[in-house]
């Protein structure tokens, strides 16, 4: 669909929905009788994309990840508020005095869905499997690990190359999920076509382009799942998903459009909810292009952005203006870091001190077919005009857009980030350290003081001291304004009244064993 067709489509859908809401109304049968979870039933989740693969070490899309997390579990998991690491398949750990060896005790009595008990050999195999993928997979997340050793049947020792504070957070990543030693005698390819783990659900079937289904693990070590099965249906069109949840054909609509969020909230029998996330949207300056190596220019633009207006237009008010390199759902977030807020007078002052006091002409690269980025770019266009900066909007489809960023072929662009682990390091190393591989999220920002702070924080295991280092880092990056922070957006789900217990962590994952459906 072309962009204008899509806009028309959305407009018509919104009109149709309004008409529907007007003639519908009343008659919601919310029977809140009989408290306590109900067992049984199939939970159906509609979402835009199909899964791609169940190979936990080389798969990067969230749609696949959220399914595999129901099947394969890591040693540690993220707390409900997304900021702490809690033991999961592990029960505890000890750190050596030199901070280079972590001895991890495994939970006893855990079995794979095949009935085999989980042992230290399985853990070693699973972690090594991930480490081995290196740059081709998630292996880089284990870069600090020198070796994983079996101590006895219920204990492993992880030796590090250097002191590494984010280790437990890294172990909580799905890519370090535990699978049977040697893939249970299969090849990797065979294994991941029907993966086996210790999780609350068991792989059932995948009809590509249509649905993927998991069923309850009857022998799960933890609290048994209430549902019999969970099915994720592929429904590419947001409007169709919305109507499906309204008609009760599916139980959950994963990520409805913001434009339809309010009407879904008011629809009878539907419960539209937002969950705290780590999603941050920001503008990247390409410092290889003039005049963006000049911090005054970057600060001027950052001051000129009316983030409240952007939140109102793009998210229909369902978000907050961003004020740090970190999102509030990220550990060590510090809001008092002096990030630029909307102030046109300050923006003009900064530009006057810059190498381009009279303004200039530049471009912003956005994804075609993305109404959010189009709105942001249009608002920016109007605001920067007041500084004498003429902004031209350049649209490319998502893959071509990414290619341009990789080739550093852009002036300004809009990007976003969500965290995968409850530790800021995944993000800071990607975004401030050029050795992170992305040239500081394609900005070519390289401040030696910030890079040093990031390295120090990686090695610092004292929580309070680490917090101070990250506070300093947030302050300095805001001062440098190498990104213009735009907004934090929550996750959004619409579900029928019957769905209970569904919650999403700020990292985007969900534990479906606690979910049930009332009749």
């Amino acid at each position, binding site marked *: *669909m072309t962009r204008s067709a899509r806009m028309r*489509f959305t407009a*018509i*859908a919104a009109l*149709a929905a309004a*008409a*529907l809401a007007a*003639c*519908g109304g009343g008659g919601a049968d919310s029977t809140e009788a009989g408290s306590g979870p109900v067992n049984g039933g199939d939970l159906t989740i*509609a979402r835009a*994309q*199909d899964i*791609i*693969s169940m190979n936990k070490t080389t798969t*990067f*899309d969230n749609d696949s990840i959220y399914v595999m997390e129901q099947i394969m579990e890591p040693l540690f998991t993220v707390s409900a508020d997304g900021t702490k690491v809690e033991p999961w398949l592990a029960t505890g750990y000890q750190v050596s005095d030199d901070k280079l060896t972590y001895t991890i005790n495994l939970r006893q009595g855990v079995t794979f869905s095949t009935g085999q008990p989980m042992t230290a050999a399985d853990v070693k195999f699973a972690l090594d499997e991930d480490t081995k993928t290196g*740059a*081709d997979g998630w292996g880089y997340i284990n870069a600090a690990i020198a070796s994983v050793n079996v101590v006895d049947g219920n204990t492993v020792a992880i030796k590090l190359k250097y002191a590494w504070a984010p280790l437990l957070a890294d172990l909580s990543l799905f890519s370090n999920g535990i699978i049977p030693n040697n893939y249970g005698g299969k090849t990797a390819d065979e294994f991941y076509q029907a993966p086996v783990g210790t999780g609350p659900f068991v792989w059932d079937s995948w*009809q*590509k*382009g*249509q649905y993927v289904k998991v069923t309850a693990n009857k022998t799960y070590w933890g609290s048994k799942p209430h549902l019999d099965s969970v099915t994720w*249906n*592929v*429904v*590419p*069109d947001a*409007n*169709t998903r919305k*109507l*499906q949840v*309204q*008609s009760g*054909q599916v139980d959950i609509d994963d990520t409805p459009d913001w434009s339809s969020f309010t009407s879904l909230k008011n629809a009878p029998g539907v419960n539209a909810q937002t969950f705290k996330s780590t999603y941050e949207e920001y503008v990247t300056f390409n410092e290889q292009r003039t005049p963006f190596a000049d911090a005054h220019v970057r600060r001027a633009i950052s001051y000129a952005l009316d983030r409240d207006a952007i939140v109102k237009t793009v998210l229909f008010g369902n978000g907050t203006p961003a004020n740090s390199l970190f999102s509030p759902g990220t550990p060590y977030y510090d809001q008092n870091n002096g990030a630029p807020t909307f102030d046109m007078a300050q923006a003009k002052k900064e530009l006057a001190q810059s190498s381009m006091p009279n303004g200039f002409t530049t471009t912003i690269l956005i994804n075609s077919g993305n109404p959010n980025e189009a709105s942001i770019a249009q608002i920016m266009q109007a605001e920067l005009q007041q500084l004498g900066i003429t902004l031209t909007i350049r649209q*490319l*489809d*998502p*893959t*071509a*857009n*990414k*290619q*341009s960023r*990789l080739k550093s072929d852009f002036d300004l662009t809009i990007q*976003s*980030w*969500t965290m995968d682990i409850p530790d800021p390091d995944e993000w800071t190393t*990607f975004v401030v350290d050029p050795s*992170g*591989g*992305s*040239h500081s999220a394609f900005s070519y920002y390289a401040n030696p003081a910030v890079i040093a702070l990031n390295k120090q924080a990686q090695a610092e295991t004292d929580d309070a001291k680490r917090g101070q280092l990250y506070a300093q880092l947030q302050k300095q990056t805001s001062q440098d304004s190498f990104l213009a922070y735009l907004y934090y957006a929550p996750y959004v789900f619409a579900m029928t009244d019957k769905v209970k217990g569904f919650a999403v962590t700020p990292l985007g994952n969900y534990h479906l064993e606690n979910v049930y459906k009332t009749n």
Partner: protein
Amino acid sequence: MPDRFRFIPARLLQSIPVLFGVTVLVFFMVHLLPGDPAVAILGQTATPDRVAALSHQLGLDQALWRQYLLFLGHLCQGNLGQSITYQRPVSGLVLQAIPVTLSLLLFALVLSLLISVPLAGLAASAPGRARDLGVRFFTLLGQGMPQFWIGIMLILLLAVNLRAFPVGGYGKTWPQHWYYLFLPALTLAIAMCPTTIRSLRASTIDVLASDYVGTARSKGAAGISLFRLHVLRNAAIPTVSIIGVNLGYLVGGALVIEKVFAVPGLGSLMINAIFARDFPTIQAVSLFVAVFVIVVGILTDVVYTAVDPRVDISKERS
């Protein structure tokens, strides 16, 4: 009889260079698009080094002509290659989607005939009168409304308000498939009807005014049996070729409708493949669509020849 159908082998031979042209065009057009599959696969974690490593692993760093020859060589052996996104043979993905799209098209064709034939007969039986105007108004409406809008309106009315049909999807068993496909097929049928009705109405009016119908009438034939026995077969001849051409266009329409109704057919496969730069899948689907259009073209001529004994395409060509 066989003589008149001798054009078929020749037409099949002619389609080979056409298909070859399609592979060349599609292959080089998709590779002209900026952005490679490795970028799409790696998502937010893409860095230049990791993109290069993955591209190498996928064989995407080889010269383009080499990749094309490799593709052509595999194709001649009946191998469509591996989907880059799924790392599975493309043939499996396409074979799974083909019956879905074909059932949808067939269902739409049947529905459109069920709607068109009676309406055209009704309109032609009294040109210029109220029922004719009613039918003509309907065709105007059908032609003027965009397909996806018809789809949404049908969903709102029949699925959300009346809850008689599901809002998109495909179901798991064959009876369910037909039930789920009814609304998208009806949407396509409504889009297809106007041209069929118009053509059928016009030719029916001509036939009704002809001498042999006068003769049939004088022998006592009337009403539906007159329409069925004497009028329809003669009036259908021009409509057959229109339906054939329409079916070709309909494939394109089906791709959009599949998205609105979440039907996991070729359209959904194609759209995802384009965004992910899954070259082998894009090539396989376009190749199939090309084959489909060619086959429909030939079938149209076959039906045309079968319906009208006077037609002899083999002779016209020689």
